[in-house]
């Protein structure tokens, strides 16, 4: 069909964590504009395996923007050119035939490269384990209406809770800081009554773990919010900072 695209891809290939990597050019044709970016890569991998070459490895799972598994830096922008959109939801109609598209993994000390475009985001799990939870007593569930939450706080907490943990914030940050991710969890729970008992502990411990994982400090560039597939606001980082400093002086 006529509207199919032919694209020049420049893809980061790296055969293992310790191996050196490099950008490798590929040309792909017959890309339909309805394809998602990952389907386009599937298509490329199909070609590569037919030719007996090692396919390009990348992560994905739900392919509908809810799990946070996918994540590529496309033309220098995490999750590509479309705002509030994951890589798996990005459609090839965002590109023109003949375009050169660079595809790189999320780059950060805290996200070591496993292979090609796959990075290890285990650091996020370890940060969450330090305080991204609430303790509840077992037994009958309490009456939900017995704990009032204002509409404003409920909305803000919900915005924060929409984080899917993809790590695009780290990838886009010039400092490779994980502040937006960590602040989304800290703020979500700080805004809700259920989060209060562990509030101080949470802010201190999660930030401590974030620093230990080798992420950079936040310089307020705000690039994280711009690439976040859930458009999570950096105002949550302000909440995290207030919580941390308050907990620190106690």
């Amino acid at each position, binding site marked *: 069909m006529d509207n199919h695209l032919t694209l020049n891809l420049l893809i980061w290939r790296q055969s293992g964590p310790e191996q050196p990597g490099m950008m490798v050019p590929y040309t792909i044709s017959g890309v339909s504009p309805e394809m998602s970016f990952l389907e386009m890569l599937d298509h490329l991998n199909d070609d590569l395996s037919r030719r007996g070459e090692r396919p390009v490895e990348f992560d994905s799972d739900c392919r509908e923007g809810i799990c946070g598994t996918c994540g590529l830096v496309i033309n220098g922008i995490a999750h590509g050119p479309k705002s509030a959109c994951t890589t798996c939801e990005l459609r090839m109609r965002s590109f023109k035939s003949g375009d050169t598209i660079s595809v790189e993994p999320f780059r950060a*000390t805290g996200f070591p490269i496993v292979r090609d475009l796959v990075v290890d985001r285990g650091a996020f799990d370890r940060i969450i384990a330090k305080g991204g939870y609430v303790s509840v007593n077992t037994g009958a569930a309490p009456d939900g209406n017995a704990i009032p939450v204002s509409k404003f706080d409920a909305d803000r907490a919900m915005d924060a809770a929409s984080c899917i943990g993809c790590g695009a914030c780290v990838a886009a940050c010039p400092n490779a800081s994980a502040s937006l991710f960590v602040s989304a969890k800290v703020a979500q729970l700080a805004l809700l009554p259920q989060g209060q008992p562990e509030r101080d502990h949470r802010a201190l411990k999660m930030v401590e773990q974030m620093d230990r994982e080798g992420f950079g400090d936040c310089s307020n560039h705000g*690039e994280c919010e711009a690439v976040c597939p859930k458009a999570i606001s950096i105002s949550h980082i*302000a909440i995290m900072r207030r919580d941390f400093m308050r907990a620190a002086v106690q």
Partner: protein
Amino acid sequence: MISWKKNLTSSIGKKFVTGITGLLLVSFVIVHLIGNLLLYAGPDAFNSYAYFLEHRLIHGWAVYVADAMLILFFGAHAVAGISVWQKKRLARPQPYYQAGNAGGASRKSFASRTMIVSGLVILVFVILHVRMFKFGPTATVVVDGIEMRDLYTLVVSTFKVWWISFAYMAVMVLLGLHLRHGIWSAFQSVGATSPRYQPVIYVGGVTLSILIGLGFFLLPLVILFFYENPALSMGGI
């Protein structure tokens, strides 16, 4: 109980330090600019103001207190700022092949990416600046029967040297850039923002940075081109 040192050297503590000291330095710079505007009011006004700051305010103690605080603020600010920059280099040793700007909500700008450069230039500048003016050679003048340092003549004769004026103006452009990102960023660093006020703080910060940068930029320019040179007798700096 986690130690103070550990908190202040954490990622958030460091930014709290750059933020607080940054805001204090901004306050200082504003007062400094307003004082400097007295250069437009003539020698007596400027010299008397300087004399007041040095000898009259809190019986002459104010200047020592201010000096001590400024050294502390500058020092802490520079140490924390440089540390943020070092950590960033460790956090992404392998740069991207292509680095873009996502636009939209992003506050990333030329100014925000060059804070370390503008900051370090300001650091060198401040040392030279203090040497040049605070510890510069001055004659004495008598205003209203009081003998005082003729700082006005020192400043005007210094800015009459064209390359000094131009170097000053260049640094003031960098100061403006530093504050273009710095002012709003400092509010965010100390947690003093909210969804409602963030846009106001951002626009206010950018506006203030332009006013400060322009204010300091115009002084050497106006002196170089429009003032009489009083200093030929003194031999310049």
